[in-house]
């Protein structure tokens, strides 16, 4: 076993050259091999088949070689193909989501601007409508007032004319009353006393009226 171990040690550098590509993995090869040689030598003379398999140094070179090959291949495949691709997918998704969010935000702002514009337009229209309504109302009121005053003036004129006519008629009637009273008094006095002058009766009537 000891000689075999030495033989393996002698070949170890050759193995290092085989996989010169990966420095780190290479070094891991050199170290553990040396380690295990020490333990094997310490055990001394133990036969290979009697060793607990995980501690059997005869299998170490093969395991290390194939681990280096497979793990190296895995590292290459991951770092060159798989991981950049997944990273790219995630990056792409993030940028799409960000762009969508930005677009949504822009749309929202546009909507808000539209609502604000609508509201100002509405307020303007309301103000204008109110102005038009006020104007119309004022015009109607003015018209109405003018017509009413005209009609009132007309009516007052008519009333005044009617009152004047009534007054004149009344005055006329009153003069007639004097005459009737004079005639009546003259007739009554003539029947009672005898003839009396019209003038004296008229004077007496005028005196009685006061």
């Amino acid at each position, binding site marked *: 076993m000891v000689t*075999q171990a030495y*033989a*393996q040690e*002698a*070949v170890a550098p*050759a*193995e290092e050259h085989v996989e010169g590509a990966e*420095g*780190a*993995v290479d*070094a*891991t*090869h050199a*170290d*553990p091999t040396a380690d*295990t040689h020490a333990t094997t030598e310490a055990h001394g003379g133990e036969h*290979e088949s009697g060793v*607990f*398999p*995980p*501690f*059997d140094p*005869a*299998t*170490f*070179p*093969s*395991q*290390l*070689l*194939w*681990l*280096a090959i*497979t*793990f190296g*291949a*895995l*590292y290459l*495949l*991951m*770092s060159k*193909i*798989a*991981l950049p*691709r*997944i*990273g*790219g*997918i*995630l990056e*792409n*998704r993030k940028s*799409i989501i960000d762009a969508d969010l930005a677009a949504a935000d822009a749309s929202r702002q546009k909507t808000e601007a539209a609502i604000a514009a609508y509201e100002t337009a509405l307020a303007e229209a309301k103000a204008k409508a109110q102005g038009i309504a006020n104007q119309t109302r004022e015009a109607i009121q003015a018209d109405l007032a003018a017509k009413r005053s005209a009609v009132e003036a007309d009516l007052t004129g008519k009333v005044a004319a009617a009152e004047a006519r009534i007054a004149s008629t009344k005055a006329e009637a009153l003069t007639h009353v004097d005459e009737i009273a004079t005639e009546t008094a003259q007739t009554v006095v003539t029947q009672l006393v005898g003839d009396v002058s019209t003038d004296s009766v008229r004077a007496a009537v005028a005196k009685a009226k006061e």
Partner: protein
Amino acid sequence: MAGTDPIHQFVIEDMFPIHLGGDGTAGSGLNLSFTNSSLFMVATVAVISLYLILSTASKRVVPSRAQLLSEMTYEFVANMVRSAAGTAGMKFFPLVFCLFTFIFVANMFGMVPYFFTVTSHIIVTFALSMLVFLTVVIYGFMKNGPKFLKLFVPSGVPGYILPIVAPIEFISFMSRPISLSVRLFGNILAGHITLKVFTGFIVTMSSLGFLGILGSALPLIMAVALTGLEFLVGAVQAYVFAVLTCMYLNDAIHPSH
């Protein structure tokens, strides 16, 4: 008794013999044969690579289930690296990702009956932990130069304690590859042996007649529970290995702690 021998599952058998040097007799020269271990290493790498590459081939914005799993694995490891080693640690992201997926898939393969468990051999776990260790040491010195040695001198420690603290820090640093590799190896090895022992009990007891068959229900229950536990252990150990790798890489990136 190969059927119930708990050690048999760890035996490495040559499938395609490749021998370098030696005098032609058995055990001489360097055995680089393609073994059952190599087969499962290849299978592990093939499963990881094929799955990740094929599931992401269509690069969908709205992912399919398969693609989602790849993305979740990616983000899981990426968050692990970012939280433990910072954004500067992301240059080691492929390494941590490979370590995590390789150990995880190898452990899961190991749970399939008659399959070989790659991580049950200390040389494999040791090689992986040395890869981490040497990456930390080489990158640490490349990036920080002699300042990397500050790692052994914790800030805020009074000068007169340093002769005690620095050697302790140094020893704990140097024992990292051992603890890292033995933790994974020990967990997987012990778990598989225990599982095999309990399932072996079932076989042995069943051959003892009716009472034996009845009694074998106990180790059966145990074996079922242990199988669940081993799946958990396999996943957790892959995670632990990856997290510790991140923390060690953090030392290389930010040596003054």
